[in-house]
């Protein structure tokens, strides 16, 4: 497996602020992986996402996308490979109607109109919004707007999908639909997903986690490796996943295995334990 995103000691400093927003970050993302970038608010996650899409002129270091160094002359080519869904569903809705918004990226690439119409319909069907094609953004819910944003990205068939806290402004239900949708899309298109989040349960769905604190990469590994470090996560201003919380609560009474357990495995283990003691 090759690294599709590769950052080499990237640093960035916002002009008006003290301290680096990104400090000497290096990491690789394998093709087809779902990588979660986790950190508390203001830890530099969003800055990192923008740097990867070339939306930010970082001061030091290099980022390679699919083996190509991001430079001024190839930035538009590189952006073609990357789909970006932002946090606020209202502020990334460019089009006057749903179909227009999905078509916006295709228009920018000068896709012929007939092709555009099929692609827009396809993308809207995929996210389950085809009956809303003529609706205006003001009449949609937050979750529906985010689904449209996803459709707009999917219509362009990117290789990499960056989600910058794309579910953070949604209610639990909207978040659930978006995440299920993401899993489907990922399977269908073999996307590499870079999800930026401070929601630990969302991070638990990833293949690999990058833990970021104050612009520094403090740890990386599989969810099992990262999410079992309960106290450290709390120190970094993050939460502990639900399964781990149960584990911590039971620790004094029971001998709970050390390895990472998500909710399902926790339930399985508890059933086993109860059956044994009976």
């Amino acid at each position, binding site marked *: 497996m090759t690294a599709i995103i590769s950052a080499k000691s990237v640093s960035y400093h916002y002009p008006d602020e003290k301290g680096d927003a990104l400090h000497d970050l290096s990491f690789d993302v394998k093709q087809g992986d779902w990588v979660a970038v986790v950190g508390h608010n203001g830890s530099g996650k969003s800055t990192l996402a923008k740097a990867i899409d070339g939306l930010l002129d970082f001061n030091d270091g290099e980022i390679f996308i699919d083996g190509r160094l991001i430079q001024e002359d190839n930035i*538009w080519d590189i952006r073609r490979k990357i789909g*970006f869904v932002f946090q606020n569903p209202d502020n990334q809705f*460019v089009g*006057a109607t749903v179909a227009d918004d999905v078509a916006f990226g295709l228009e920018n690439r000068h*896709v012929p109109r007939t092709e555009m119409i099929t692609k*827009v319909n396809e993308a809207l069907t995929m996210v389950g919004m085809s009956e809303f094609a003529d609706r205006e953004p003001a009449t949609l819910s937050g979750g529906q707007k985010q689904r449209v944003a996803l459709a707009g990205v999917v219509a362009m068939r990117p290789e990499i999908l960056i989600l910058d806290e794309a579910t953070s402004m949604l209610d639990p239900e909207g978040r659930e639909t978006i995440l299920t949708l993401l899993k489907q899309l990922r399977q269908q298109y073999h996307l590499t997903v870079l999800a930026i989040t401070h929601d630990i349960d969302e991070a638990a769905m990833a293949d690999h986690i990058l833990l970021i604190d104050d612009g520094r990469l403090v740890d990386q590994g599989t969810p099992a490796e990262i999410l079992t470090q309960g106290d450290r996560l709390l120190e970094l201003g993050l939460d502990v996943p639900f399964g781990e919380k149960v584990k911590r609560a039971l620790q004094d009474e029971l001998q709970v295995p050390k390895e990472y357990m998500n909710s399902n495995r926790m339930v399985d283990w508890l059933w086993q334990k109860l059956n044994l003691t009976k």
Partner: protein
Amino acid sequence: MFSKVLFGRYVPTNSFIHRLDPRAKLVLSFYFIVIIFFANSWLAYAFLGLFTLVVILSTKVKLGFFWDGIKPLIWIILFTVILQMLFSNGGHIYWHWGIFSITQFGLINGGYIFCRFLLIICMSTVLTLTTPPLLIADAVESLMKPLIKIKVPVYEIALMLSIALRFVPTLLDETQKIMNAQRARGVDFSTGSIWKRIKSVIPILIPLFISAFNRADELATAMEARGYRGGEGRSKFRILQWHGKDTAACLVMVVVTIVLVGVRLYS
């Protein structure tokens, strides 16, 4: 509070007028407003009034909406008509006091102006009620195309127009939210002297401006991430199509003009 805004209040009834090309509607309603000023007799106004009435009825929109369009302007109409009546000279003098006088021509002029206002408002209301704002923006873009030759940034203007229209409801919602939030903190918008009321608008305006800046920043980033590099070299998803019925509508307007000129010459 914002339900009274007539701008962009589109009433879909799928009538013949609704299905016309927005370019045709835009150009024809402007043209009609211009030829209203060529009418100079009661007969001509009666003819134009009849034509407008036919157009209004064929939109199948409830007449109440047209009355809503006229209502806010009624004081301006009355004010202008009365001024015209009091200060026009000529013909038989019915009443006279100082510089004011009511004369025969004054009354006629006042009547004409009343008719003009009425016709203009009705026709422009026909345009806004039967055309979604989005299509009006498309029509403006399409009609401005020739200006590209004299280096007018038509694509950019069209994009700004369409983004502005798209954010009108979003910003209205936000204004309402900010107002309620400030009310909850004790700001009173509805009582006090004019000066006090003006001052109480500041806690709405400043947050609204700041959030608009933030929105613009985020929107620009999102647009760039989706490959927007300026208006040049983009293909278009929505395309306006000129049909036979649009040509027919233009021909009807030509007939109206001919009749109007005829009435003007023979009366």
